[in-house]
Structures are given as C-alpha cells and as structure tokens.
C-alpha cells in the first residue's frame, strides 16, 4: 500500500457532508409536522411554502442540505476511488459503504417524489412502472415500494422519512464515529445552508394537472431519462445502473490486471454518464 495523502478534499468535504446530513435530518423532522402523504399532497406542500410560518425556509433548507449532503458523499466516494483507497478496505466494508451511497440517492429520489408536484408525481409513476416491467416478480416487487391510487405517496414517505435514513445511519455508524463531534464543520455548514435557504428563491412547483411540454426527472437520473427514450425500461432503469454498481462493488476483490481494467471501465462509464447528464441539462433529456 502506498502512503495515503490527506488532501483538503479528503478531510473537509466529508465533515461538511456529515453536518449537512445532521441539518437535513433536523429540518426533515420539522417538515413532517405539517406534511401529509395522503389526500392532495401538492396542496399540502404549497401550504407549507405559503401558509405555514417559515415553511418556505424549512423546505428550502431541507432541500439544499439534502442535495449538499449527497453531492458531498458522491465527491467523497470519488476521492476514495481515484486514490484507490478501496484497496485498504475489506470487501464487506466497501460493499456496505457503496450500498450507503446508493441509499443516499434513493433518499434524494423519494424526496423528489414527495414534493407531489408534476415532476414528483411523474417520477414516482415512472419508478413504479419500471419495477412492474421486471419479468415475473415485477408486479409484486413494485408494491413493496410504491402503489397507485390514494396511497401513492405513502410508501415513498415511509422510505424517505424512516426506513432509509435509519438504515443509512446504521450502516455508516462506525465510519463516521471519529468525526462526529466536529463543531467547526457543523457551524460552517449550518451558516452556509442557512444563508442559501434565506437568499435563494425555491423554484416554482408545477401542479400535477398542468400541461407542460417537457417534464424532467431529478438531476442524477437525467441520463437514465435519456436512455429510457431508446432502451427497454428494465435495461435502462435497472440493469445498466445495477451492472455499474456491481462493477464498483467487486472492485477491491479483483486482482491487479483485472482490477486496472475494471477501474478504467468504471471511470469511462462514469464520464459517459456525466456527459449524458450535462447534455440533458442543457438540451433536455
């Protein structure tokens, strides 16, 4: 093992990320006092923004702390990947950390659905139908995550507010223990996110029944949204992302020659997905 260089990226970003997570959890708990996943969810969220005192602030604060947390976790993982630190992890540890990163994105996605606006509703609809398109088991598998009708937002709500955050904290508990009392990072994070939520106007939510020419998914799924135009839903939505995650998972287990090939394969796939995402941000998916 070559000695590991500790750069600023490696030390400060994950600490800030952890602060963002703590602030995100707190603001999320505050939001649940008014948020209801049943009935007219769009109206409920609009009431949070326009009627409930400081509702606009807590929504924006929760949104930005969630985004910052997950983006920092992605950068943190990339940092480990590029420095080949996975070599110092056991396969089990690496597996659980990559699983945690996937859970982060799933929390972000369910949050996107919970808004109950047009984007959120359609994203949920697409997620449900991709699961249903899995041969044989799809129909019942989908019901464990999301169901049509009155209860549409209920399961994503349970996953977003309870199952996934609890699972996530459980999985990373050992990993974060040593930096937990980093008050400087918590303070800096709180100040930055507070200012953002105060100054930056949230984007306007479109009602689910309004007619819009193009509906975009969350930023990290824009590439998949593009792929869905040309590929079978199970291939674009599950198989290809699943294969990518699998390649990352087995990375520490591969020998030197295979390991290097896999490393370049993952880097190429990641860059291609990045290009696809930027293309979709600029010209639409």
């Amino acid at each position, binding site marked *: 093992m070559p000695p590991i260089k500790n750069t600023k990226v490696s030390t400060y970003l994950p600490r800030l990320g952890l602060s963002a997570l703590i602030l995100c959890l707190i603001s999320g708990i505050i939001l649940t006092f008014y948020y209801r996943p049943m009935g007219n969810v769009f109206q409920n969220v609009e009431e949070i923004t326009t009627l409930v005192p400081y509702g606009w602030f807590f929504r924006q604060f929760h949104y930005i702390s969630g985004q910052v947390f997950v983006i920092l976790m992605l950068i943190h993982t990339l940092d480990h990947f590029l420095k080949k630190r996975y070599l110092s992890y056991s396969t089990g540890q690496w597996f659980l950390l990559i699983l945690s990163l996937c859970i982060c994105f799933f929390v972000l996605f369910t949050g996107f659905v919970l808004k109950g606006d047009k984007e959120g509703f359609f994203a949920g*609809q697409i997620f449900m139908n991709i699961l249903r398109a899995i041969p044989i088991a799809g129909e019942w598998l989908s019901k464990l995550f999301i169901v*049509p009708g009155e209860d549409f937002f209920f399961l994503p709500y349970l996953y977003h507010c309870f199952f996934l955050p609890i699972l996530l904290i459980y999985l990373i508990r050992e990993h974060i223990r040593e930096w937990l009392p980093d008050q400087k990072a918590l303070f800096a994070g709180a100040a930055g996110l507070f200012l953002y939520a105060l100054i930056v106007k949230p984007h306007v939510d479109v009602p689910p029944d309004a007619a*819009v020419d193009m509906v975009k998914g969350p930023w990290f799924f824009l590439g998949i*949204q593009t792929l869905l135009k040309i590929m079978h839903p199970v291939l674009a939505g599950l198989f290809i992302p699943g294969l990518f995650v699998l390649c990352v998972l087995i990375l520490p287990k591969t020998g030197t020659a295979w390991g290097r090939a896999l490393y370049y394969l993952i880097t190429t796939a990641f860059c291609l997905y990045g290009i696809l995402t930027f293309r979709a941000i600029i010209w639409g998916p």
Partner: protein
Amino acid sequence: MERREFIGKGIKRIFYAIGAIILAYPAFSFMKFRKSRKKRIIFHPDEQTSIVNFKKGVFLLRQGSENYALSDRCTHLGCSLNYDPVSQRFSCPCHGSVFDVTGKWLSGPAKKDLYRVPMTKKANGDIIVTITL
C-alpha cells in the same frame, strides 16, 4: 474442519433458510396486499360537448356520433399525456411518445396504443367511465 462439524453447520444453515422462508412468505404476502379499487368518473352532458373532453385522467372523445374513452396514461411508463388540438395528437412530456386522436401509437418508446377504458351511457345523457387502480 471436522467432517461432522461441517455437516452440523450445513444442517443448521438449512434450518435457518427454512425458518427465513416460513417468516418471509406471510410477511411479503401482507406487505404486497392491496384491495383492488375502481374509480368512477362521470361526464355530464355539458362536459361532453367538445371533440376531446378531459376529466380526472380520462379523455372522452367524439367521432361522428360515436364516443370512446382513453386513459391519459402513456403506455410507456405512465406519465399523463398532453392533447394538442392543432395537430390533434397526444404527446408525452416524459420521453416524447406521440399518439393520434384515436389512441394509436405513432412514435416514441411507448410502442403500444393507448388503453381504451370501458364506459356506459345513462338515459339522462351522463357517460360513466370506470378505471381500475
């Protein structure tokens, strides 16, 4: 490892697996259960006047003296379609599928025609459309 120990471990694992299945089956059955629900949408006579009428997820269309109802769900992955009166087509805002006014698929990843939903006409002129959720 001793042979006997190895067999012992194997038997233990099999018991665990059987135990897990016995627990998992009722759990999954519980978690995936949903009552099948039907939603009724009523188009009153004054809501049937245009060639294309829309209410709560259903397009009611008129061709000559005949009516038919189409679900507004795209047959690709279920986004709601927009109707464009100029081109007389339905288009999907998610991945761009296009359908003609009778619900026939024209282009895009959907590949299937739109679903027709069953409807009945009452004596007072109401048209009742039933969709299963």
